[in-house]
């Protein structure tokens, strides 16, 4: 297991494997997303209270989940990179940040678009919304720190450390609706016992959630391949790779 991990984490191996897997994941992601959107926008009935506007849920909820998931992945990868000094983990952490920031941004935008019909305002300073905004700033912090430090190795380690520190925000986001009285919806889908949501809405929602996850993995693999190349600029395998492609 350990040996396998180490082999997989070796940059040239990762570069090849990722290149092979990524397109497949991309296609699956597209398929699921199409099915999810069809189910959500066409099949599912309008909500008896909210009419059609609730359909934004199919983008809002998956992107909100992903915004948190990506952060956890990023922090985990950073911890691995700092402790075991695995370069690939550092690449994964750093390359996750912009993707996660995009998901966060999407969750914020769709949320506040949804808030207008639901709460009568685009924005309130309640705990869920504020902590999600903080998440966006944390992503910016990671990216900013990485960009500001000139030495790449130092930059990666510093940004990783900051990502780990910021992880405290994740439980705050999740439990904010329970700890404070907020305008925001309490847990509806994620209640373990019985989701208080109809199956015709639940299924497309889950489809969208899975496809968002695949989207992340696909994009991450692509970005990480570039990152690995860039970081290994002087390594032998990159040179030979470039030498092979250059004549074309």
């Amino acid at each position, binding site marked *: 297991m350990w040996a396998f991990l180490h082999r997989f984490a070796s940059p040239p191996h990762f570069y090849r494997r990722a290149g092979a897997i990524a397109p497949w994941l991309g296609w699956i992601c597209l398929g699921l997303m199409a099915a999810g959107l069809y189910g959500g926008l066409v099949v599912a009935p309008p909500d008896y209270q909210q009419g059609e506007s609730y359909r934004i849920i199919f983008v809002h909820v998956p992107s909100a989940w992903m915004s948190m998931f990506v952060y956890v992945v990023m922090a985990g990868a950073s911890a691995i990179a*700092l402790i075991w000094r695995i370069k690939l983990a550092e690449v994964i952490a750093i390359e996750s940040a912009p993707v996660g920031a995009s998901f966060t941004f999407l969750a914020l935008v769709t949320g506040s678009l949804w808030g207008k019909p639901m709460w009568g305002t685009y924005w309130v300073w309640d*705990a869920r919304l*504020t*902590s999600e905004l*903080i998440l966006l*700033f*944390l992503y*910016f*912090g990671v990216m*900013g*720190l990485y960009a*500001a*430090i000139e*030495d790449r190795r*130092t930059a990666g*380690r*510093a940004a990783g*450390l*900051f990502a*780990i*520190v*910021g992880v*405290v*925000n994740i439980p*705050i986001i999740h439990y904010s609706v329970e700890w404070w009285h907020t305008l925001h919806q309490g847990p509806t889908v994620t209640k373990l016992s019985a989701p208080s949501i109809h199956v015709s809405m639940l299924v497309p929602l889950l489809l969208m959630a899975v496809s968002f996850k695949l989207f992340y993995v696909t994009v991450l693999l692509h970005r990480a391949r570039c990152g690995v190349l860039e970081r290994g600029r002087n390594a032998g395998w990159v040179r030979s790779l470039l030498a092979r492609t250059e004549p074309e």
Partner: protein
Amino acid sequence: MNAFIAIVRRDLLLAMRHRAEAANPLLFFVIVVALVPLGLNPRRETLELIAPGVFWIGALLATLLSLERMFRSDFDDGSLELMLISPQPLPLIVLAKILAHWLVTGLPLVLAAPPIALLLGLPTSSLAVLLTTLVLGTPTLSAVGAIGVALTVGLRRGGMLLSLLVLPLYIPVLIFAASAVSAADGLPVTGQLYLLGALAVLSFTLAPLAAAAALRISVS
């Protein structure tokens, strides 16, 4: 332990020498709080309503501005390098610096709060809660801030980045504290106070470790 005391002593001594500069956060705090009635020109009821928030915003900004001092000058004159290659455990040294920073920055804010609160017309019932939030909250600000400064001290252009890194981590403290104070007359506030206390304990145990690691990274 010896080193711990020596560092705290040293930083307090430096603050004494720079008395005027060390008083800066307090002065800044007072300015913020004093400018509010001047600039906002509010009615008395409004003033009472916003006073707790003004307090905490002032405290937060004052701390934010004083953070750089924690490591910057040590970095510039090479003292930080001496700490890094000292045989003493680095987290201990960092803890000493956090403590000294709080003694110089946070404590004066706590002490200055009562008279200012009276001036702003905060009801005495809220005052006790305000003081408790300050006592519990300002150490967290110093501790969390240490991580941010440690990460950016190697950068010349760290100023803005520091705010970007530290503020998101400060906002929970601000929210808990301000909501506790404004809830003070009537609603129960123990929940928020416990949370503030928990944050303080958490940050004082973890921040020295994180900041020490950050220093090693950013001084290299």
